[in-house]
């Protein structure tokens, strides 16, 4: 019988297979950041171990980094210590680091792909659950804990329990204004936050094939929000075109050999998945979350659901608690939910196409009175590209704040946080209680919905904007 894409990549990385033991897999690329690595380096030191493959390891600073005044010392002493710890560890163990202020600094899952390090058929790990992002290239990529970070540093391998396979097939055409973010939010809402547990999801079908690399990354990024171990998309011409010429992409004869291998990375016609989900792209609409986990979402055109409508008692209780925390009432139209803050950024939607999409909506318009809009590019490279295209001026002319690169308000480890009771429309990936700041309330949205929401002050899509943009503002940009 044939094999799935995930099974092929797995099989090609088995270092050791023995009866009664988990497979030992080789790791092609290990990404590090400041939050989940210090205790791992301590472990190496305590046991007198070294980093086995510094040439397969790379670090950057993203979670703690400020997005203002990056040329000044970091105000929060605990954040500063954590960043300094990473710098000391990378120096001691000779690991390549792109610190704050470096041109290659940024959110770790934006940096890997833009350097061309994330490649089809590789295994990629990072002490961060959104490592699933890299599956967009046909890599087997997953988040790990700090003990596993230490394990990979010391051995460049991981013993891993077997996985099950799930196909999420999306056929048809995404309607105008419907994005990869709406698609993945709808998928999570369908299968639930635990529905992917134990599975590697392969996204396939004509609608997936038509997505750009950046949109594919948005889809794979949120696989973890469905509980999946990883998400993958088979590499194709779109993947190869994205990679060709990037700093760490293969060159010359190596490129030809790599592409020849990459072309074999497709699920065989006679392979079977353990579970299959089908979605008609044509039926999708802009999608937003109303609750406190990413599975609690609904079309923007819908209303806040009534907890009583849930058959399962634990779902009902979860919905009741979510509405209480979110300050929403059953039956309230989602379009009438007013927000205080709009956040555009993160490893989910902080790449150049996301910024272009948001800029196209706010361009020539104004952010609504009383609304704060933060635009945080995913990396320094993304920021430079945006500046070259004049997007930063489009945002600032509309009244948005243009910030430096990092994770920022996605998880509020730096000063970019919601105040208690504040409500955001956010292009990030998690709407957990307090995720963006203690007592903050988060609605997950696409960049387009975020931008339209900023202009109108309530959850909205670009189709809700009746006014024509002010052409003079656009010309200035």
């Amino acid at each position, binding site marked *: 019988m044939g094999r799935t894409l995930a099974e092929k990549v797995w099989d090609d990385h088995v270092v050791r297979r023995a009866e009664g033991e988990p497979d030992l897999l080789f790791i092609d690329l290990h990404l590090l950041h400041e939050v*989940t690595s210090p205790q791992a380096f*301590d472990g190496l030191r305590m046991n007198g171990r070294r980093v086995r493959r510094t040439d397969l390891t790379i670090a950057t600073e993203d979670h703690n980094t400020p997005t203002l005044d990056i040329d000044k010392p970091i105000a929060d002493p605990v954040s500063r210590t954590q960043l300094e710890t990473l710098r000391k560890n990378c120096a001691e163990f000779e690991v*390549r680091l792109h610190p704050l202020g470096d041109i290659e600094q940024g959110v770790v899952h934006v940096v890997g792909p833009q350097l061309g390090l994330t490649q089809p058929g590789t295994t990629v790990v990072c002490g961060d659950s959104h490592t699933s992002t890299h599956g967009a290239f046909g890599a087997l990529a997953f988040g790990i*804990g700090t003990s596993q970070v230490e394990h990979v540093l010391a051995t460049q391998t991981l013993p891993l329990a077997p996985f099950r396979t799930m196909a999420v097939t999306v056929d048809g055409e995404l309607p105008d204004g419907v994005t990869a973010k709406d698609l993945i939010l709808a998928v999570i809402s369908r299968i639930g*936050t635990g529905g992917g547990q134990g599975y590697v999801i392969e996204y396939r079908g004509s609608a997936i094939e038509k997505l750009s690399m950046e949109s594919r990354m948005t889809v794979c990024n949120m696989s973890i929000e469905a509980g999946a171990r990883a998400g993958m998309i088979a590499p194709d011409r779109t993947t190869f075109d994205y990679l060709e010429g990037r700093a760490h992409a293969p060159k010359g004869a190596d490129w030809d050999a790599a592409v020849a291998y990459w072309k074999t990375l497709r699920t065989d016609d006679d392979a079977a998945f353990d579970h299959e989900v089908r979605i008609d792209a044509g039926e999708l609409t802009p999608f937003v979350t109303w609750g406190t986990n990413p599975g609690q979402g609904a079309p923007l055109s819908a209303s806040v659901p009534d907890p009583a409508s849930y058959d399962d008692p*634990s779902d009902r209780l979860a919905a009741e608690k979510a509405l209480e925390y979110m300050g929403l009432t059953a039956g309230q139209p989602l379009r009438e939910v007013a927000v205080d803050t709009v956040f555009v950024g993160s490893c989910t939607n902080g790449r150049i196409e996301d910024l272009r999409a948001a800029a196209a909506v706010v361009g020539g318009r104004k952010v609504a009175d009383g609304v704060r809009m933060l635009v945080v590019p995913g990396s320094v490279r993304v920021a430079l590209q945006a500046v070259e295209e004049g997007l930063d001026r489009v945002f600032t002319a509309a009244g948005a704040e243009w910030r430096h690169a990092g994770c920022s308000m996605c998880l509020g480890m730096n000063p970019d946080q919601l105040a208690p009771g504040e409500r955001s429309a956010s292009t990030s990936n998690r709407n957990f209680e307090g995720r963006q700041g*203690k007592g903050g309330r988060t609605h997950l949205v696409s960049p387009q919905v975020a931008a339209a929401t900023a202009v109108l002050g309530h959850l909205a899509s670009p189709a809700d904007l009746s006014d024509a943009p002010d052409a003079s503002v656009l010309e200035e940009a």
Partner: protein
Amino acid sequence: MEAFTTHTGRAVPLRRSNVDTDQIIPAHWLKKVTRNGFEDGLFEAWRKDESFVLNAPQYAGATVLLAGSDFGTGSSREHAVWALQNYGFKTVISSRFADIFRGNSLKNGLLTVVLPQQTVEELWQLVEADPTAEITVDLVAREVRADRPQGPLTAPFELDDNARWRLLEGLDDISLTLANEPDIAAFESTRPSWKPSTAQV
């Protein structure tokens, strides 16, 4: 790693599904660079509510967490496991755990036990009716036991032999892997030249 063989203790009933790791330990605690000192951050936001079950005096000192389904979703932060252990929990029982959280737990000797939701419900009822009731989690026999007024409860659970052995012995995974170093070296020697490298170009 701390070995786990069998544990008996009182239990806290956490009747809530989808408890994500941001609730178990909020992000601002992740700035610490140690593996200890996280006990005050455990469920920090919920503990501000006096009625939160962890604040109930009858459950003080409990060492078994009886959680709802999909416990430990979201972020990969191992700090969630350290926080539970720092606070005093030895084992967590749920009908379903998020994969990364479960992996992190087993790496640290915090035994995560999967039982059917119906059994979790029975255990909830037991410790809600009698907070002094003790629950035994026996990794040797791979079963959970409790005495109830209506008769004893015995629930078998699954854990693969290899993971069980590593927990029972408290083995260091890295040492186990390094014992197979020649396999790693052999794999590395056949790795194609076009595979990615982070060496500066």
